[in-house]
């Protein structure tokens, strides 16, 4: 082993860590974001290639095979996945990272190399967190992909999870106290428990809460990677992992805040796809249906239309038609704006990605704070596939489970058009008072088909 190789390796890790931070910083503005990921990618490539030069390593052939297998599968799946399915894909890749951190911890614990108590403790902790993130992300993937249809809940679920966590921590503590090497049975138990914990923690969480969950597991994987970085004396892993851990924590908090709920509430209350038994609001009035032709006239002769997309637009794959409609309206001199709620969809910023896919320029897409005051001056608010994020009950009904959640003020618009598949309550099971307002009309049917009708009708005005 030569000093030269070691210096080269350290230097390349240093450069990689710098490029990651630089790349993430570039990603904070839409203008420079594209370059940001490329810079971070260069850092990753350099770090990976240089690692092959590390002295006293073996298993190179198998290592290369493993990289090829994982890389090719991920490359192909990443290129093919539809934009609407992006949340589950990100959950999956994130889970893989957590699993890798867990695997590192397992190898180190089985190999029993001499580590100090602090390193051993961090290694065990990183292993637990990584395994929880791995199993949890796989469950999140299964739910979003529709493989797991319902949420499993039973009495005392939180208590069982708490016991699981305590036992996992106990086994981990035994491993740390015992020191490096030995106790292979305990190592197996540790990872089995952590995996089960990840599953039981995630199963009860409903689809609407997924933006928070995906973001949380992203942060946890980052943390696990940082901890394993301490075990392997790898500064690049420590820095990159910690940066992601803290960035992810911030993002998770933003998501939870957008729903006016604490993180603990998201994780442990089990709400998210069923209404709490208490807050059943009686909504008076009736939903009033309308034809596509009438909606087209209404929108075609208005001055300002605000479109509010939700998860339903993703399900119906209606984003391209929505943009076509917006273009037709803009062509007639109507001002069209898009209003996005922070937790619309299944991951943070889900709607923005879909609209970008359809070609909607990002400067007519607005955040909640930017646009909420404008609804009062809008002639039409077109709600497509959104539900809870426009439910005025959140402002008024203290008994509602979504009370206090900041919403988009679509109800303040002069006319509200809601495109909706049927009359039933949304995925959250909460009745939406917006649908019953005097200025609201319902356009029933498949999102894509109905918007296509609107496009035709507007064009023939």
């Amino acid at each position: 082993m030569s000093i030269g190789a070691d210096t080269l390796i350290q230097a390349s890790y240093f450069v990689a860590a710098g490029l990651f931070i630089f790349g993430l910083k570039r990603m904070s503005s839409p203008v420079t974001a594209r370059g940001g990921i490329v810079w971070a990618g260069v850092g990753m490539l350099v770090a990976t290639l240089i690692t092959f030069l590390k002295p006293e390593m073996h298993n190179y052939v198998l290592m290369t095979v493993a990289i090829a297998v994982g890389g090719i599968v991920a490359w192909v799946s990443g290129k093919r996945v539809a934009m609407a399915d992006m949340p589950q894909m990100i959950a999956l890749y994130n889970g893989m990272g957590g699993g890798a951190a867990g695997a590192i911890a397992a190898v180190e614990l089985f190999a029993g190399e001499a580590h100090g108590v602090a390193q051993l403790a961090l290694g065990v902790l990183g292993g637990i967190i990584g395994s929880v993130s791995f199993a949890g992300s796989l469950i999140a993937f299964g739910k979003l992909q529709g493989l797991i249809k319902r949420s499993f809940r039973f009495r005392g679920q939180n208590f069982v999870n708490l016991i699981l966590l305590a036992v996992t921590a106990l086994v981990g503590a035994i491993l740390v106290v015992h020191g490096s090497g030995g106790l292979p049975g305990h190592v197996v138990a540790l990872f089995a428990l952590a995996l089960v914990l990840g599953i039981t923690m995630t199963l009860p969480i409903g689809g609407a809460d997924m933006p928070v969950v995906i973001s949380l597991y992203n942060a946890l994987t980052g943390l696990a990677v940082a901890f394993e970085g301490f075990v392997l004396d790898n500064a690049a892993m420590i820095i990159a992992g910690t940066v992601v851990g803290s960035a992810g924590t911030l993002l998770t908090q933003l998501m939870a805040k957008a729903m006016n709920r604490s993180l603990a509430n998201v994780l442990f209350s089990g709400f998210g796809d069923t209404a709490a038994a208490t807050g059943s609001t009686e909504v008076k009035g009736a939903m009033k249906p309308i034809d596509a032709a009438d909606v087209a006239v209404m929108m075609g002769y208005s001055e300002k239309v605000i479109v509010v997309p939700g998860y339903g637009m993703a399900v119906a794959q209606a984003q391209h038609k929505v943009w076509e409609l917006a273009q037709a309206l803009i062509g007639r001199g109507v001002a069209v704006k898009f209003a996005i709620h922070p937790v619309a969809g299944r991951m943070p910023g889900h709607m923005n990605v879909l609209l970008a896919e359809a070609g909607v320029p990002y400067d007519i897409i607005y955040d909640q704070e930017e646009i909420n005051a404008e609804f009062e001056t809008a002639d039409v608010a077109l709600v497509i596939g959104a539900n809870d994020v426009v439910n005025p009950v959140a402002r008024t009904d203290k008994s509602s489970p979504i009370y206090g959640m900041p919403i988009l003020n679509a109800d303040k618009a002069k006319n509200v058009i809601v495109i909706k598949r049927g009359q039933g309550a949304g995925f959250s099971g909460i009745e939406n008072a917006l649908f019953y307002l005097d200025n609201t009309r319902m356009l029933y049917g498949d999102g894509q088909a109905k918007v296509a009708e609107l496009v035709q009708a507007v064009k023939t005005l």
Partner: protein
Amino acid sequence: MIDGFIALYIFMLAAFTGYEVISRVPVILHTPLMSGSNFVHGIVLVGAMVAMGRASTPLEIGIAFVGVVLAAGNAVGGYVVTERMLEMFKSSKGKK
């Protein structure tokens, strides 16, 4: 090599860096940012490679192999989807 308080300093500074770097990100970039940070923790690949390089028993090699496959998936998949998403973001004012 990196131990004790030096490690703590690195940890603390990196945590603040992460917080600062993304604290003013607009909502429209939340997904690419999450996906991008998802890619960045793909650096776990380097660790998995080191663990595999040191592994000696078949059990260790087996676990490390799985670790490297998963880590490579994280890094490559994270990059591909982030790049695909960012490619789509366009402004209405001129195109580049």
